[in-house]
């Protein structure tokens, strides 16, 4: 074993010993959360379509909901699916949540954002499936 390998082993051992159990647990929780959110967003990203139709219909009317809501829903659906993929791939790296709400069924009246960015043409009232309580 070369000197460099011994040095690297020592550094790694020290780092692992310094890392507390709590940090390990929080890392594990973040890791599993990201995997779970990634899989859920890949699988259920399409729910953004009915979500946008329902909420925009409630905010405006059925015609705006079925047109603008559907367009918005598709864009959101694709975005959430892609973001889900990114979450899954980067799950070992601790980061803040990529999508908000993290799951498409959470806070159904909240217009989804990705990396804190939102799309224009959002609704401004609670939808029929969520009263914010």
């Amino acid at each position, binding site marked *: 074993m070369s000197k460099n390998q011994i040095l690297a082993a020592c550094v790694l051992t020290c780092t692992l010993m310094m890392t507390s159990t709590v940090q390990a647990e929080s890392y594990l929780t973040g890791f599993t959360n990201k995997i779970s959110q990634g899989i859920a967003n890949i699988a259920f990203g399409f729910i953004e379509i009915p979500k946008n139709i329902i909420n925009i219909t409630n905010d405006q009317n059925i015609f705006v909901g079925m047109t603008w809501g559907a367009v918005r829903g598709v864009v959101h659906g694709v975005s959430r699916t892609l973001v889900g993929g990114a979450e899954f791939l980067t799950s070992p790296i601790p980061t803040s949540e990529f999508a*908000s*709400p993290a799951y498409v069924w959470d*806070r159904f*009246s*909240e*217009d989804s*954002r990705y990396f804190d960015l*939102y799309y224009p043409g*959002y*609704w*401004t*009232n*609670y939808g029929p499936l969520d009263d*914010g*309580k």
Partner: protein
Amino acid sequence: MKKYHYLPLATLILFLTACATPRIDTEDLKAEIKSARSGHYGQAILHQELSEEDLEVANTILGHLEKNHYWNINEKQKALDAAKSAARHRLESEKEMCLWLTEVHSQNHHKGEAIHDTVAYFKTGSSVPFKTKDESISKVASWLKAHPDATATVTASTDTVGKPAYNQDLSEKRANALVQRLVANGARPNQLTVKAIGEVAGIDNTPHQESRVAIVITSHPNYIDCPNVKLK
């Protein structure tokens, strides 16, 4: 209409009648619900409940704003209105509670006029009264006993016969003589303030009955429920 139509029609009417949902009289239930919140105490509870509901709304929205949830819905005004409404209901609750308080203990409020009476008369140089108004003494003592927060001042004086220092001492003895009678009739010593004024102004060495007296003056605390709450 042909005869054979009558029977099915009658059957249908009977069937529909049989299916009519019975109406349950709810007047007694409404009266019971209303009675649960009647009166000042009931209204105080009602306003407290409404205040709590409003606060819950305000706190929920505060949580949304702090966590940046429901960013697309402007809820701040709703939360401000709810918080203001909660404060209003809280004040109304406090007012109703004060009115209830007055309602349940108003008998403790002192409504009578203060008593100001000369109750003992003395001969020159004597600290033992030759005449007392026992009925007045008893009345004042009983009143003080019934109202522990009330007080009375016992004032005694002398004429100008004798030396001023002697008369000062004499007036104290006269006042204490009256205090003893009041205490014997039920007043508490800590309710009584002695005011020995010695000689009353006048021509030297002149006996004067109007100066050789002991007077009792009651003091009524000006009690108000919740003085800092505007009830109207």
